[in-house]
C-alpha cells in the first residue's frame, strides 16, 4: 500500500478496490454493500427521516475531534433534533491527491468509532480522488437515515407563548476551537470543540415524557441564526437573555480580541430545545445528567406566536433584535 492517496485510487480500478478494502471495509466491517451498487436495509417502520451534509472543516484535525467525528455528529444530530432515531449513515469521501494514507485511516477510524458509539451503522460509502489542488485535503458527505418516533414525537404545532428555550451547554466552543486550531490569527487556547453526537441524550429527553416542541442544533450561523430560523419558520416571537447564555471564558476572551459575537459562532455538539415551561426542570435534569449537557441552561422563552422574530435582552434590561449572520464574521480592529 502507498503512503499517499493517488489519483488512481479513485478511478474505479484495482487501486480503488484496494483502498476501499483496506481502509474502509475494514473500518466499517461491512462487506455486504460492496457486492451490490446499493445497501439493503430493513426498517421497522416505513416512516423515515433523511438528512444530508457535507463537511469541509479546516483543519481536518482539531482539539476535540476531526472531520470524521464531526461528519457523524453533524448528521446524527440533524436526525435526532428532528425527533427521529438515527439508524444508518452513508459516507462519501472526496480526497485530494497526495493525501496521507495514515491521516485517512485515522479519520475513517474515528468516523467508524463515533458511529458505533452513536449506535448508527455506515451502510454505504464512496471515494473519489481529485487532482492536487482540487480539494483542501479531504471532504466528507454523510447522509443519515432514521425512523420517525411513534411515541414521544416532537410537536412543533404546539409551540406557544411561555415555552422555554433551553440550550444544552456552552456557546461557541467549536467556532473558537477551530479558529485557534487554524493558527492564522495567533489565538492559543485549551478549548476543545464540542463536536459529539447528541442522540442518546436527546432520546432520554424525549423519553422523559417532557413536551418538546422543537429542537435544532445551532451549527453554522450559531445560536442567533438558528433561533431566527425557528422564529421565522414557526412564527414565534422568541426572547433570550444575554446574561443567561452559558459561555466559556476562553470563548469570551477570543471574541473580545477579534470583535466576534459568540451568538454567531458555530457549535457542533449543542441542541436548542423549545419545551413547555412546566417541563423545564425535567429537561434540564435529563440534560445535566450527561457530560455533554452539564452546562444546560434556560436562555429564553417564547413571548408570543404570530410574527417570527428574535430579541435579545441586554444586561441593562433593554431589548435589541437579532438577525441571521450577515456575511462572514471577520476579525476586526475597530
Amino acid at each position, binding site marked *: 500500500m502507498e503512503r499517499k492517496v493517488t489519483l488512481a485510487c479513485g478511478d474505479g480500478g484495482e487501486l480503488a478496490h484496494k483502498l476501499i478494502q483496506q481502509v474502509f471495509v475494514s473500518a466499517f466491517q461491512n462487506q455486504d454493500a460492496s457486492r451490490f451498487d446499493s445497501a439493503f436495509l430493513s426498517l421497522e417502520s416505513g416512516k423515515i427521516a433523511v438528512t444530508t451534509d457535507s463537511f469541509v472543516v479546516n483543519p481536518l484535525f482539531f482539539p476535540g475531534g476531526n472531520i470524521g467525528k464531526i461528519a457523524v455528529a453533524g448528521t446524527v444530530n440533524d436526525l435526532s433534533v428532528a425527533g427521529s432515531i438515527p439508524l444508518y449513515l452513508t459516507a462519501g469521501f472526496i480526497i485530494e491527491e497526495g493525501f496521507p494514507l495514515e491521516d485517512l485511516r485515522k479519520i475513517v477510524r474515528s468516523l467508524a468509532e463515533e458511529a458505533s458509539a452513536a449506535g448508527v451503522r455506515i451502510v454505504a460509502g464512496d471515494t473519489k480522488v481529485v487532482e492536487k489542488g482540487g480539494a483542501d485535503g479531504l471532504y466528507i458527505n454523510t447522509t443519515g437515515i432514521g425512523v420517525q418516533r411513534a411515541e414521544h414525537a416532537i410537536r412543533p404545532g404546539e409551540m406557544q407563548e411561555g415555552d422555554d428555550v433551553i440550550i444544552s451547554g456552552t456557546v461557541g466552543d467549536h467556532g473558537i476551537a477551530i479558529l485557534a486550531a487554524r493558527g492564522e490569527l495567533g489565538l*492559543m487556547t485549551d478549548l476543545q470543540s464540542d463536536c459529539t453526537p447528541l442522540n442518546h441524550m436527546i432520546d432520554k429527553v424525549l423519553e422523559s415524557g417532557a413536551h418538546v416542541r422543537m429542537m435544532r442544533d445551532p451549527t453554522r450561523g450559531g445560536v442567533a441564526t438558528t433561533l431566527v430560523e425557528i422564529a421565522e419558520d414557526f412564527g414565534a416571537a422568541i426572547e433570550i437573555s444575554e446574561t443567561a447564555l452559558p459561555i466559556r*471564558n476562553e470563548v469570551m476572551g*477570543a471574541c473580545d480580541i477579534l470583535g466576534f459575537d459568540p451568538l454567531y459562532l458555530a457549535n457542533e455538539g449543542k441542541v436548542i430545545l423549545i419545551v413547555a415551561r412546566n417541563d423545564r426542570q425535567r429537561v434540564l435534569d435529563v440534560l445535566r445528567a450527561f457530560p455533554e449537557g452539564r452546562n444546560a441552561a434556560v436562555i429564553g422563552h417564547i413571548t408570543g406566536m404570530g410574527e417570527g422574530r428574535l430579541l435579545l435582552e441586554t444586561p441593562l434590561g433593554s431589548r435589541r433584535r437579532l438577525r441571521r449572520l450577515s456575511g462572514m464574521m471577520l476579525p476586526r*480592529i*475597530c
Partner: protein
Amino acid sequence: MCVGVPAKVIEKKEYTALVDVMGTKMEVGILFVPEVEVGEYVIVHAGQGMSIIDQVFARESLNEWGKMARAGII
C-alpha cells in the same frame, strides 16, 4: 476606532509577551510597553500592547461607579 482588550501578561520575552484574555492566549508585541511585568494587564490592539493598566485607578473607578450609582440626584 480601535478594538482593544485587557490582557494579562503571563510570560515576557525580549520584544513580545504571552498574554491571556480569560483563558485564550496570544503572543503580542510590547514595543510600546517595554516596561510591562508578568502579572500586569495591558490593552491589546492589533497584536500590540498599547497601555499598561493602572490597577489603582481601575479599582478607584470601580468604587466611583458604585458611588455614582448609589448617589442621590441633585
